[in-house]
């Protein structure tokens, strides 16, 4: 799990307030790695969105006459043990992976940031209680915690997403707490306070936008992690349940047919690899942009 250093606050002050997301656009097209990664992500997202239209096979419909047939012009990625088209299942798996990534990282970022901002804003006992809880979650190896929570809640895709969200909570909480500690001392935040805005208004309108950039970088790094973790859980049988396809579940199924139909194992793994590579490339580009030390060193 990659973690953004909690001391990084890229651009502070009024500028951050006015041009909120200009940096994101600038980075995506300035760094060649980020551009390539972004293109790969567009490809994966495009596959998830338009794949079912371009490749009209039912990913869950068995066709026993064509079971275990190798890649051909009719079935580009071959078929599985029930004769289902693997390309169609990889496309459906892309939808699942992106959905799980978005929901679990989004949920985790929302709750985790709320915890971190509250802790950093109020400090004192609020800070102590909230952050000690986060420390305990952080004390578990991530995959093990996700595994334990899914096992406790019962195997399903929803529970896998809940588990993944809980695992990343402390990452977002720690990062946003550190950022909030810096942000609450900024001139315009103090100005808001002097003007008599409520605490909630200050946190939502002044602090949240200021601390957003590093949190977005962190989210992009964890997105890749979430996709891998979901595939692990599904691979172990604790995530998505059959017959719905997911890349991890397809690999689990492929294990039984390695000698007969190795293509069943090739393509879902390749799909995870490509999606995660794209996310890592974007994440690398964003992180370098953000770490002031790298910027100085690389002279960019």
């Amino acid at each position, binding site marked *: 799990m990659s973690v953004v250093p909690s001391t990084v606050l890229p651009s502070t002050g009024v500028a951050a307030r006015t041009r909120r997301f200009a940096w994101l656009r600038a980075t995506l097209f300035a760094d060649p790695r980020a551009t390539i990664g972004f293109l790969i992500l567009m490809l994966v997202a495009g596959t998830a969105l338009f794949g079912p239209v371009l490749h009209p096979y039912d990913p869950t419909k068995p066709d026993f006459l064509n079971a275990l047939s190798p890649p051909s012009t009719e079935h580009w990625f071959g078929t599985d043990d029930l004769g289902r088209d693997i390309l169609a299942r990889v496309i459906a798996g892309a939808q699942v992976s992106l959905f799980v990534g978005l929901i679990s990282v989004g949920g985790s970022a929302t709750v985790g940031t709320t915890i971190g901002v509250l802790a950093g804003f109020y400090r004192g006992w609020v800070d102590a209680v909230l952050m*000690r809880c986060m420390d*305990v979650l952080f*004390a578990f*190896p991530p995959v093990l915690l996700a595994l334990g929570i899914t096992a406790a809640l*019962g195997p399903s895709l929803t529970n896998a997403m809940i588990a993944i969200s809980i695992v990343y909570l402390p990452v977002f909480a720690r990062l946003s707490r550190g950022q909030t500690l810096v942000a609450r001392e900024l001139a315009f935040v103090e100005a808001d306070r002097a003007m008599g805005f409520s605490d909630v208004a200050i946190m939502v309108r002044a602090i949240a936008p200021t601390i957003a950039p590093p949190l977005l970088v962190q989210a992009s790094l964890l997105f890749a992690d979430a996709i891998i973790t979901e595939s692990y859980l599904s*691979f*172990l049988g604790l995530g998505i349940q059959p017959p719905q396809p997911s890349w991890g579940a397809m*690999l689990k199924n492929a294990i039984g047919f390695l000698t007969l139909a190795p293509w069943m*194992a090739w393509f879902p793994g390749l799909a995870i690899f490509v999606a995660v590579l794209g996310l890592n490339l974007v994440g690398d580009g964003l992180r370098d942009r953000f770490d002031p030390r790298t910027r100085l060193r690389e002279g960019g």
Partner: protein
Amino acid sequence: MRYVLTRLAALAPILFGISLISFLLVHLVPGDPIVAMIGLEATDEAIDALRAKYGLDRPLWEQYTTWIGSVLQGDLGRSIQTGRPVAGMLLEALGPTIQLAVSAMAIALLIAIPAGVISAVRKNSVLDFGASFVALCGLSIPSFWLGVMLILTFSITLPIFPSSGRVPFFEDPFGNLATLALPAVTLGASLAAATMRMTRSAMLEVLSQDYVRTAWSKGLSPWRVIMHHGFRTALMPVVTLLGIQMGQVLGGVVITETVFSWPGIGKLTVDAIFARDYPIVQGAVLLTATIFVLINLATDLVYALLDPRVRSA
């Protein structure tokens, strides 16, 4: 010394939290564990009797204090399936897991440290781009897929290594290493990738420092500048990363051991989850998290030993 004491004091609430979560994980399971154990046809009297036997009829906090009391005495309860003490089963599985984790770590360090140093010294060369690209791929490959691909290549197409199981070392050392090879490479790959990237960036940072430039200008040999002035300083963040990476390893063994049927803690945990053998799940989660916390503590202490600034801070 004060630093050590502060760190040890901070350990207590964390360990308490870990035990609480490990305990609650099992008690949050939807449905009645007793019914899950003996089946739906059981009579109410039988269910009540078992519930009393396992202490499940008492309030939750009382169950927790009883449980943690016996845990502290080394008693983790008994497996529902086999009736054997959980502590013994975990201890038995710990050996293979440690062997796998240490081998993976060794493979990772042997590849990653030289690759990272060379990449940094020959920055922006073909070698650097090549190594960095391979590392990025290593980070992006899901370990179970790598494992499956290794089985396809080295067990099925070219039958060199066995695809699953473990031969105990003292029975047949060579057989043991043959069964170890594929799982260790699988687990070591992502570890090597992350370590290489960290070594490279730490070296780059150190090599741009003034004192390194001074060392060059003194006419010292490249080896001495790079290894003595550069590498020793660059090692610090790498040590920290290795501590964090142990979390990945302890999580990663779950997947790797399942793919290769390696009889360690990870496989034991997954099997226990599907067998609804909750005492084992509870014990394994507690043990693994505790090991992880202790490794992190050890990392911090080693870090303090290497860097006097941390001790006084």
